[in-house]
């Protein structure tokens, strides 16, 4: 908001350079009044704390309510039903990959990387039930995720290639009008896409699109292409909500210590009988 005011103030001073960066026409469904926050360069300013709502972290597809994987948790960790975030409600797995997804689902309590506090990868990081913070600088865009201290720097300069595979991949961004487009490669394929065992491999290529719906809502889309797992590219589409709470801040969720019993418990010393 403050930047919008600044923009008007600067524009009224007659700094013509900004005119070249005038907002592109609003996407369909956008608010009639363009209240998109803007950076000094006229680009949309995505800075802020964002979070997905809904149940995409449980399952990207339509799903009925279900029990917790640990019965002791009762309703505390039961799965709420939810409408999926994949247009067409289908993930086009190749036959062998569909079987792998089923195995993942069956073994999710033991195998889901989220349960081990492993970095969530892209796109999963963006719809975990934890906030993340975008800091947009004149040069680059940085995203810090509350979960597992994951982060990524989106290179907005000349695209560069991933040197090696990583959990969070390698992000090159550019603007398509008022949409931030991020091309993600170099993912190590060890993270999953949700708690239902949906997954992609280390050959996945993810193209993300971030577009303001209004000043406090972003449309997030991620198109995933991975010929070793899917028969065609497919897309996730969901809104991201700005955390407007006064004094909202990320609170470090260093979850390692909550997983050590799970990961190492079997190796603890047990006194000889």
């Amino acid at each position, binding site marked *: 908001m403050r930047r919008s005011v600044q923009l008007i103030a600067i524009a009224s001073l007659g700094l013509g350079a900004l005119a070249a960066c005038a907002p592109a026409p609003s996407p369909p469904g956008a608010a009639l009044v363009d209240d998109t926050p803007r950076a000094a360069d006229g680009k949309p300013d995505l800075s802020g704390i964002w979070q997905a709502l809904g149940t995409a972290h449980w399952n990207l597809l339509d799903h009925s309510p279900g029990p917790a994987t640990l019965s002791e948790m009762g309703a505390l960790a039961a799965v709420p039903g939810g409408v999926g975030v994949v247009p067409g409600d289908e993930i086009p797995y190749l036959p062998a990959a569909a079987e792998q997804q089923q195995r993942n689902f069956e073994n999710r309590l033991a195998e889901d990387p989220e349960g081990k506090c492993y*970095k969530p990868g892209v796109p999963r990081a963006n719809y975990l039930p934890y906030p993340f913070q975008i800091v947009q600088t004149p040069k680059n865009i940085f995203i*810090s995720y509350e979960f597992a201290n994951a*982060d990524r*720097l989106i290179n907005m300069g000349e695209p560069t290639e991933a040197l090696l595979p*990583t*959990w969070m991949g390698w992000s090159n961004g550019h603007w398509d009008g008022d949409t931030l487009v991020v091309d993600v490669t170099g993912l190590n394929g*060890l993270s999953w896409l949700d708690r239902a065992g949906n997954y992609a491999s280390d050959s996945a290529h993810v193209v993300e699109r971030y577009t303001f719906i209004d000043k406090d809502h972003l449309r997030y889309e991620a198109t995933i292409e991975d010929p070793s797992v899917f028969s065609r590219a497919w897309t996730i589409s969901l809104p991201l909500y700005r955390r407007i709470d006064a004094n909202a801040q990320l609170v470090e969720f260093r979850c390692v210590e909550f997983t*050590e019993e799970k*990961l190492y418990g079997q190796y*603890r010393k047990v006194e000889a009988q």
Partner: protein
Amino acid sequence: MNQRFARAIATLGVPLLLASLAVDAQQATPRAAGWTSPKTPWGHPDVQGFWPSTEWRGVPLQRAESLGTRNTLTEDEFAARERQAAAEAASDAEEYAAPSTPDSKPGGNPPDYWQDRGTPKTQASLIVSPDDGRLPPRTAEAEARIAARAQKTTGPADSWLDRSLYERCITKTPLNFLPGTYNNGHEILQNEDYVVIRHEMINQARMIPLDGRPFTGIRTYMGESRGHFENDTLVVETKNYLTNGAVIGDTPVSDDLKIIEKFTRTGEHSLKYEATVDDPKTWTQPWTMAFEITEDPEYPLYEYACHEGNYAMVNILKGARAAEAAQRKKP
């Protein structure tokens, strides 16, 4: 792997600390004539960039007592430090590491890029205050904390809880810029409302608001940071650390720990870094380390998935269980 490093550092490190005693950070760092501190488009001092503390790896935190209040090495002392660096480089290039004790076997040497060794410096110690470059005396409470730790009844690897927070990939130290064995990369990013300081080691980013908001009551391993500018200097105050055994050097710190960091550009590619550690339950007075960092645009930060790749923890615990089983089998 961790343990072998620890051994290597233990054997190399102590004499190194004593023998190697770098720019006198106590003196105001001269600025180039005609140079003015860069500003962001919104008028804040611009301290962005890649600022690895790698080059300071060879300078000990504490000064040799023999140097007193002098924090600049003589030519002879500096030459000794250069010889030391050359010896380390030669040793790092060896295929096999020397035995750490007379009756132990030589081991495979890690590749020579593994350890950060730094650049020989004329600054004697990282600590610039107190004047003698030494850590102030510890409080009785801190000594009791250390004694309690020494009296623990569990073995070195009965469980993961017997290993350090660092080995568990939880946190290395609250004093992130203190140079360590490797991964000394740091990157600073800014917009109008936040400063981000990214630390390569254990892959963490501090999101530092500039709006003057108060501290909360939330404790975390990274602590809670608040930032503001004083003239051309970024000042970051951090407290609310979740200590749980967190250490600075080898001293476990208290919940009262507060760290004030100052970042000041001194040239187109240089930044003066200062950190004052104030923990009245641990040290009898605050102390400050300071050094000038050279920007290294060729040192981008890569993901450090410490926990995800922590095979060492499983191996340490499994190894200890195997050793116990072998012991039980002995007649």
